[in-house]
């Protein structure tokens, strides 16, 4: 174990300050990226295929964990907690605002679909733990539709890119920013519902 740790440490020290990776190539292509933040451009434009597959993986995880059906009831024990109830009143609006801001700020700085979706999913889980039926009050068909929305929007964008521009997920020139924002919004909804359903769907077992 010690020898392995020493080997890894030696390798890590030789990696430091070595190369900048693909940062130069990304910066060269940022003009066509549509957004100002290189991480968002890579996630949603240059490597949007990977993001699409990540959403499919999340969908598969949600399907697998929920066994294809979504049903949950608010846990009765925590519903009577007054501290959590008053905390909800203060926290959930701020979390919704933070999720919206993260989604919008992803174009200029750190943020984007995954961060916003995670905060939104956490808000839904918090609502559920406080006894307010947030996700379980939605009809199951709506929950399923939201779960599929992210991967489906990427599929539609991919097909549109194939038809209009000849390459899968190729955004039309000048529309990259708008396409990225739409895809990020769909992905946020999908990620939030999937993460919340993964936690809440287990809650009644």
């Amino acid at each position: 174990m010690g020898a392995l740790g020493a080997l890894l440490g030696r390798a890590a020290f030789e990696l430091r300050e070595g190369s900048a990776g693909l940062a130069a190539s990304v910066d060269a292509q940022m003009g066509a990226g549509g957004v100002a933040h290189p991480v968002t451009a890579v996630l949603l434009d240059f490597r949007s295929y990977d993001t699409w597959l990540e959403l499919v993986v999340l969908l598969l995880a949600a399907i697998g964990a929920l066994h294809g059906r979504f049903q949950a009831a608010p846990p009765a024990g925590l519903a009577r907690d007054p501290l959590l109830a008053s905390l909800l009143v203060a926290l959930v609006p701020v979390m919704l605002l933070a999720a919206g801001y993260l989604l919008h700020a992803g174009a200029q700085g750190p943020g984007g679909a995954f961060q916003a979706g995670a905060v939104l999913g956490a808000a839904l889980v918090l609502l559920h733990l406080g006894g307010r039926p947030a996700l379980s009050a939605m009809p199951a068909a709506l929950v399923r539709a939201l779960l599929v929305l992210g991967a489906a929007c990427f599929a539609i964008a991919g097909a549109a890119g194939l038809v209009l521009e000849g390459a899968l997920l190729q955004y039309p020139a000048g529309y990259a920013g708008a396409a990225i924002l739409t895809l990020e919004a769909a992905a946020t909804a999908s990620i939030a519902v999937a993460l919340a359903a993964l936690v809440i769907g287990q809650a009644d077992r």
Partner: protein
Amino acid sequence: MTTLELAFDIVVVAVLVVLAWRTLDAPGIFQAAVLFITFGLTMALAWARLAAPDLALAEAAVGAGLTGVLLVHVARVLEAAEEATAEDDSGAR
């Protein structure tokens, strides 16, 4: 890198290693879940020190927030089930 930054980084790395060891070595599942949440937050701090703010946000929200909540809930359910089995065993004797 100034000395203060280096000291801070060493402290963060040490805390990460100690937290990881304590999480694996925790006496109960609930303690392990809580330590896992702490580890996730310290990891988010490490990402921030590595100039990766997107990763830090995602780690804090998903690793500490959602996975942490899931693990704590599962720990509670498991401990309640263990207590129920223990009561059944002691009642049967």
